[in-house]
């Protein structure tokens, strides 16, 4: 598969009261066309900043991004973002149908726009609610509208910032399966930022683990699970459990066991801190398996 997104040495720092705060400390990775890649990292590690940089909403202080070969400057034309807070990212003065049509207003005529929006609503199982207002729908349905809006735009890259962090667990499972289904049906390239380890393993073809700020890519894990996933059987499979533990360990600053680290994030950190985090992660694991260090 050709490379869709290439991020090279992307860094972002901003001025804080006590000098310059480095949020992202040089992140490099690629995403192939048709891939679903999850980015996990500890809270406050600059995941959202990374996503906004890739989307062109903020300019990174260094590094570069290319989207299907062309360097990104400002907001690229064929990119869509789904944010966590659906109630604040849907336009309350527009109906569901018109919300989905919104990004198509610039490029398409009325009839084609309407057809595309109706089609996208159908993909997410919301045909028939186009005439309602978004605030008349449940949270899960609102996020489906946001997903439909992004898909109707037919983006080369779909960026999602904690897309399911604001819905209840049941809805979350439904939306995860919905996302897997529609993005595979349309061979979408997706980058999902999440803090949820289970979600990253369940959704991803690959997982990028970030360190704390200034964040770097600690590991690039390939999810060795069949593409067809199931909320019950996938989550209880050995491969899932192993990968989840692996990701958790990496998140806690531990060394990867099975995968070579892309960059050595631990260098930047104080040895003592890494050691104690490692011990914490191990303690958390002892209930499940024997300590090996």
């Amino acid at each position, binding site marked *: 598969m050709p490379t869709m997104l290439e991020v090279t040495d992307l860094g972002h720092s901003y001025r804080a009261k006590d000098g310059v705060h480095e949020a992202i400390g040089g992140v490099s990775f690629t995403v192939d066309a048709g891939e679903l890649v999850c980015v996990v990292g500890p809270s406050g590690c600059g995941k959202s900043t990374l996503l906004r940089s890739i989307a062109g909403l903020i300019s990174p202080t260094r590094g570069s991004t290319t989207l299907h070969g062309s360097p990104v400057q400002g907001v690229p034309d064929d990119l869509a973002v789904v944010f966590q807070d659906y109630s604040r990212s849907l*336009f309350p003065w527009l109906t569901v149908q018109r919300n989905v049509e919104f990004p198509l207003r610039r490029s398409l005529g009325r009839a084609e726009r309407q057809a595309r929006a109706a089609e996208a609503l159908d993909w997410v199982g919301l045909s028939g609610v186009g005439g309602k207002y978004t605030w008349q729908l449940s949270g899960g349905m609102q996020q489906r509208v946001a997903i439909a809006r992004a898909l109707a735009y037919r983006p080369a890259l779909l960026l999602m910032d904690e897309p399911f962090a604001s819905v209840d667990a049941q809805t979350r499972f439904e939306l995860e399966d919905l996302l897997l289904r529609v993005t595979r049906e349309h061979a979408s390239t997706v980058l999902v930022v999440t803090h949820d380890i289970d979600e990253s393993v369940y959704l991803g073809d690959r997982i990028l683990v970030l360190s704390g700020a200034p964040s770097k890519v600690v590991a690039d894990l390939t999810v060795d699970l069949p593409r067809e996933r199931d909320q019950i059987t996938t989550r209880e499979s050995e491969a899932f459990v192993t990968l989840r533990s692996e990701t958790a360990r990496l998140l806690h600053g531990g060394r990867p066991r099975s995968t070579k680290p892309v960059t050595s994030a631990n260098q930047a950190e104080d040895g003592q801190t890494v050691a104690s985090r490692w011990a914490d992660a191990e303690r958390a694991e002892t209930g499940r398996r024997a300590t090996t260090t």
Partner: protein
Amino acid sequence: MRAFTRGTAGLVGFLALGEVATRSGLVPRASLPPPSVVLAGLAGLLADETFLLDVIATVLALVIAVAVASAIAVPLGLVLGGNPAVRQATRAVVEFLRPIPSVALIPLALVLLGSGPETKIALAVYASVWPILFNTVYALDELDGLLVETARAFGCGRLRVLLSVALPSALPFVLTGVRLAATTSLVVLVSTELLTGGNPGIGEFILEAGSGAGRMDLVLAGTVLAGILGYLVNAAFEGAGRRLLGWSALTRGRS
């Protein structure tokens, strides 16, 4: 319905109290005629063509003033609200001009614009611009950054974000500003008519009824009509707001 019944009862009670106070001689009848006489006078006036022309003149001036004020203040508000630098640069001037009472500008307006209807309209516009301008600016302060980011992520430029995100999102605030502006406009129009004279309007009618003949019942009838106009204008804008911007009350009520 219950609220309506209570409102009516309150109004009837108020009129009855006025009736008793004036008829019992508590208040001199010549200077404050009883409500029944005033209302009868008003009924008579509504059949009087010259009076109706006065009313139309005032209402027309009101519509023009509010339309012109909106056309000035909404775009200006979008510019000030969207550009902190421009806002800071104009702050001193705006804060100086805003507290000036429009009525104090009558002599200046008479010299500049003459004694035609444009004088009262200009003064009403001056008074109306502020509530619309400030509500628009404040609405942009309240604009949700995530809505803007969403639009930007879909490739909307600055102007497009302003027109298709900032403006609709600000509309409920803007409409409140226009509603306040309309009632302020009415006060300024009637005051200017009353103080300058010579132009058809409710204020002019009140001025003439009060001078010479001293027909306080007609003065009060004109005043009551101005009050009714103010009430209707306010109610019309509230109704329009509820119909057009139902999303706003509902979404705000929830969050």
